[in-house]
């Protein structure tokens, strides 16, 4: 059962309510968004309605979540200056800086 306008599931017929987790802030392309401490970066992005995570090297095509278990690399973004980070298996940390990655990414660029 989803509250309208939110992608987070507040209560589930089998799973009940999600476990309590501190709300933290991460910076995505320069914009602060609310995330839950420790959830995968990809989950935080989806919860905020963001689906495009990167653009491919040769044709600049958008990519997003695909396998969600760290096997396919479609979800890669640049995190705290490190490119090609699989956001589906990387937990959120307060103040983390996440950037939509263009192509193969570049090391050391922390700000959008």
């Amino acid at each position, binding site marked *: *059962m989803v509250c309208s306008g939110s992608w987070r599931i507040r*209560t*589930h*017929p*089998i799973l009940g309510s999600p476990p309590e987790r501190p709300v933290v802030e991460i910076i995505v392309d320069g914009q602060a968004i609310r995330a839950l401490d420790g959830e995968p970066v990809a989950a935080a992005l989806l919860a905020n309605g963001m689906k495009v995570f990167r653009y491919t090297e040769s044709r600049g095509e958008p990519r997003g979540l695909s396998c969600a278990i760290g096997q396919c690399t479609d979800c890669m973004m640049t995190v705290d200056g490190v490119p090609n980070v699989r956001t589906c298996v990387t937990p959120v940390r307060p103040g983390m800086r996440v950037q939509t990655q263009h192509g193969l990414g570049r090391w050391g660029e922390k700000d959008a």
Partner: protein
Amino acid sequence: MIGGAAHLRRTGFLSEGELAALPGVPGLDVIRRGRVAVIECAEAIPCNPCETVCPKRAITIGEPITRLPSLDPSRCTGCGLCIAACPGQAIFVLDYNWSDSEGTVEMAYERLPLPSPGEAVVTLDRGGSPVGAGRVVKVRQVQAFDRTAVVRVAVPKGTVLGVRAFRMRGEGGR
């Protein structure tokens, strides 16, 4: 599988003919006598929680556990433990004689929001097509059902054989 169950394979739900052939589905004469379980299980799945859970031993599978469940209506009290226990949600309890004009269909329900007793619903058949009006009369949630609610819906007597789901008023269509 019973007779190939071609309709089930093609459409995802059992035809009248396929249902009639199932050892877990009592005949119309039995259903007309009153509260009884209907086990709409047509495939040789290795599975027997219904047999295990029935306190009256009304359900028999035996070995191998891929055998279809058969129902002994004389033992069945319509308690509904099997409704919640069936991992396939394939069991219903019908009460044809609930009142002069209405019967009830009891079914597994694992969604939110839970309907409330008294709530008006649109009843659906096995194919998801609307049948008519219905009214929720009871919602059971107990620990033994392990998070599967059992909802009892009152419907015009004649539709007891066909109603297997419902839509709450206000819910959109497909």
